[in-house]
């Protein structure tokens, strides 16, 4: 009875938005039961000897060993293992993204998914690190470098197979923006911070006018302004349908983003936030989440000299929603768990650290109803670990997306990507956001 109720419950909770061939009788899809692991659901307390039931790519139920396993379920024994939600990487450059070009500092029209090679080894390495959902972004060499794309690393033939689609079937994504030194260059790029911000404000004011024209046209299609790809993307931002994913390091640059956020009312996530620890109260007050990077040493450029391992802990204590990100190839997706573990080293809570890799990231992409925790109704995205998620000795054993195993360390082909070796790397340099664009602008 309990199972039936849970099934019904999960069906009620299930967003009916997946535009793939729908399973006509989802309740008839085979049930998968993952039993015996310590489950850290990221939405509540750890479950020893846990049971995770999956059906049709969704989580059907989760509980301790008292949860009955339906007859006929395909049982996977995970005794002694640890299960956590699939990791959500809010800032990744896997698959060789190339968004905006050198023609202008503001290019909201470009879609990063038109540039991706999902066959790149970094995609496989991300799976080996337990990453299931990623926000693939263009770089930070522009004030506005284009539309980002939210993907599931579920595998496939073309990038379309990786999309996370909204209820209208459209691919989801954010809008990448940047301030500070990276977008600064010679004309048409801005030369100062004042100019950078003026150019951005000008653009959003144009978008507001575009929005007004559409509103004024009402149902009269003849009065509509001509289609403008850039304006259309900014309109989605103004309407809250597309979240601004904003690169920013220095404390004053962070505050500038908050000022723009207040002026135009767009949803925004602060990225990198190297000096976030200096303005944690202001960030908390603005209720803006932070996706932070952890780099093994400070520096590399002037605005990252005060980067600290403690940023995660400071922001957490201030009440800010915090996620880590890989910025892959800046850090290696295979070591994504390590970023949060070093956050714990510098004072972050363990629960906060787990959420910083899962639920908090999902919130920053507006996907928290679908991914980020192990709760009934959510996508069956999870990672099987050999032990404590925050130990250097722990290995990612399996990665599952929507009920399908997409990485298995016992498979030699997958192991190659997990540890490296001949065939696991690329001849060309991975995309390093800022370096490449800085060079291109010279």
């Amino acid at each position, binding site marked *: 009875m309990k199972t039936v109720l849970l099934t019904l419950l999960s069906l009620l909770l299930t967003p009916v938005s997946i535009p793939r061939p729908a399973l006509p009788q989802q309740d008839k899809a085979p049930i998968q039961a993952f039993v015996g692991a310590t489950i850290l659901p990221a939405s509540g307390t750890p479950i020893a000897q846990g049971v995770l039931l999956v059906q049709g790519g969704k989580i059907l139920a989760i509980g301790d060993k008292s949860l009955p396993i339906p007859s006929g379920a395909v049982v996977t024994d995970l005794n002694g293992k640890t299960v956590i939600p699939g990791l959500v990487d809010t800032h990744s450059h896997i698959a060789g993204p190339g968004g905006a070009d050198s023609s202008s500092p503001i290019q909201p029209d470009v879609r990063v998914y038109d540039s991706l090679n999902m066959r790149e080894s970094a995609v496989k390495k991300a799976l080996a690190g337990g990453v299931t959902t990623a926000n693939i972004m263009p770089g930070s060499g522009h004030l506005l470098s284009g539309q980002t794309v939210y993907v599931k690393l579920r595998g496939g033939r073309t990038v379309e197979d990786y999309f996370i689609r909204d209820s209208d079937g459209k691919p989801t994504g954010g809008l990448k923006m940047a301030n500070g030194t990276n977008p600064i260059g010679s004309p048409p790029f801005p030369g100062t911070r004042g100019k950078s911000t003026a150019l951005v404000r000008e653009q959003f004011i144009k978008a507001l006018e575009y929005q007004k024209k559409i509103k004024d046209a009402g149902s009269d299609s003849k009065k509509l302004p001509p289609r403008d790809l850039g304006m259309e993307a900014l309109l989605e931002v103004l309407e809250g349908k597309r979240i601004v994913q904003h690169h920013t390091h220095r404390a004053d640059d962070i505050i500038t983003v908050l000022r723009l956020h207040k002026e135009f009312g767009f949803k925004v996530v602060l990225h990198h936030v190297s000096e976030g620890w200096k303005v944690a109260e202001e960030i908390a007050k603005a209720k803006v989440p932070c996706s932070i990077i952890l780099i*093994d040493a400070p520096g*590399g*450029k002037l605005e990252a000299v005060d980067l600290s391992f403690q940023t995660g802990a400071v922001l957490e204590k201030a009440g800010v929603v915090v996620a880590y990100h890989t910025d892959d*190839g800046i850090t290696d997706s295979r070591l994504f768990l390590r970023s949060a573990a070093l956050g714990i080293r510098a004072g972050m809570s363990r629960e906060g650290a787990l959420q910083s890799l899962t639920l908090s990231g999902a919130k920053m992409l507006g996907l928290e109803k679908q991914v980020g925790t192990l709760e009934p109704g959510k996508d069956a995205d999870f990672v099987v670990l050999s032990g404590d998620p925050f130990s250097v000795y722990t290995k990612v054993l399996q990665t599952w997306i929507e009920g399908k195993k997409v990485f298995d360390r016992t498979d030699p082909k997958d192991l190659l990507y997990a540890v*490296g070796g*001949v065939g696991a*790397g690329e*001849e060309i*340099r991975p995309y390093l956001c800022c*370096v490449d664009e800085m060079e291109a602008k010279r």
Partner: protein
Amino acid sequence: MRNIPRTVGALLATLSLTFGVSSLGVAQVAVKAKMLYTMAGSPLQNAVVVIRDGKIAAVGEAGKVEIPAGFTVLEAEVVTPGLVDARATVGLTGIYNNEGHDQDQLEASTPIQPELRALDAYNPQEKLVAYVRGFGVTTINTGHAPGKLIPGQTVIVKTTGNTVEQALVQETGVVVADLSTGGLERGKSPGTRAKMMSLLRQQLIKTQEALSKESKDQPRDLKQEMFARVLKKELPLLITVHLAQDIANALRLQKEFGFRLILDGAAEAPLLLEEIKAAGVSVVLHPSMQRAYGDARSLSFETAAKLKQAGIPFAIQTGFEGYVPKVRVLLFEAAIAAANGLSREDALSAITRDPARILGIEKRVGSIEVGKDGDLALFDGDPFEYTTHCIGTIIEGKIVSSQKN
């Protein structure tokens, strides 16, 4: 001129004997460890290290070693020798990453410049030197980065001191060479691997001939002097090579001239374990977390374990980063090797005793033994665990870091 550093060192030693310790800030210090990795035998439980006048005066189990009255006493869960970085650029490279200001790791004017001393370019007050010191690193072989056929020299220093002379362990650590793609010049010579080998062979042959003439009237030639020291095996030649074919080139060169070869980087070493072993050369392995692209595309977290298994002497390095992290943390790089097949003690050895031996400075550093420098790293748990902290660093008896990092 060359003797100045030694004179200063001797002077300092004399001062410390004459005026006692406090005036120089050298504490008489003892460290109690729940687990002491001496790297000279099995780890000791509940052990004590006594450092007197900068040198290790006693090591042993708590009951058997007396802590002299008046000594500062520190305690830690785990104590290891101060870490030794076999190959870095920190101090020549700095936190700001601004060319002309703190990026002195590579001089681009000409391909062959063994006369460039790292001694003249090392900034002991660089912030990132203090940063790595906070993670237990006490000795670094730092200097010119790969990127030219012969980029220059390295210097071996302690990670403390206001001047390079105060920090000095050895004026020249190694002569650096690059036979990888990095050594090639764009549109200039050497533009091919064969040309790199030819230029280097010609230099070494010229030096051999000059050495055989033993003429006293020859004008001094700084380049030739360095090649002569390599040929006389006074200094190792550290050659950056990743691809198997480039490793083979380095071995071929070594066989012809018989110098002390250290393979640097060596991403594809697992493909040539037998050859490397037979040549009797050492490897200074790339950082575990180096990005896998270009010549290093085939690198693996498991290479350290494979070298160990093959019986090839090796150390783990932090290397050079053009962008971020602007310096790598040696401890973190060894941790990844420890999590991928290398035992904890072997991983510790790869950042203490083994680099000391490879660099020829094992009489001073790399293990905790009576008479060696009082260099220690203190931890509140397994040094390699992500959530453990380095809680103290001691260099020659002086507590140089007591932050919880």
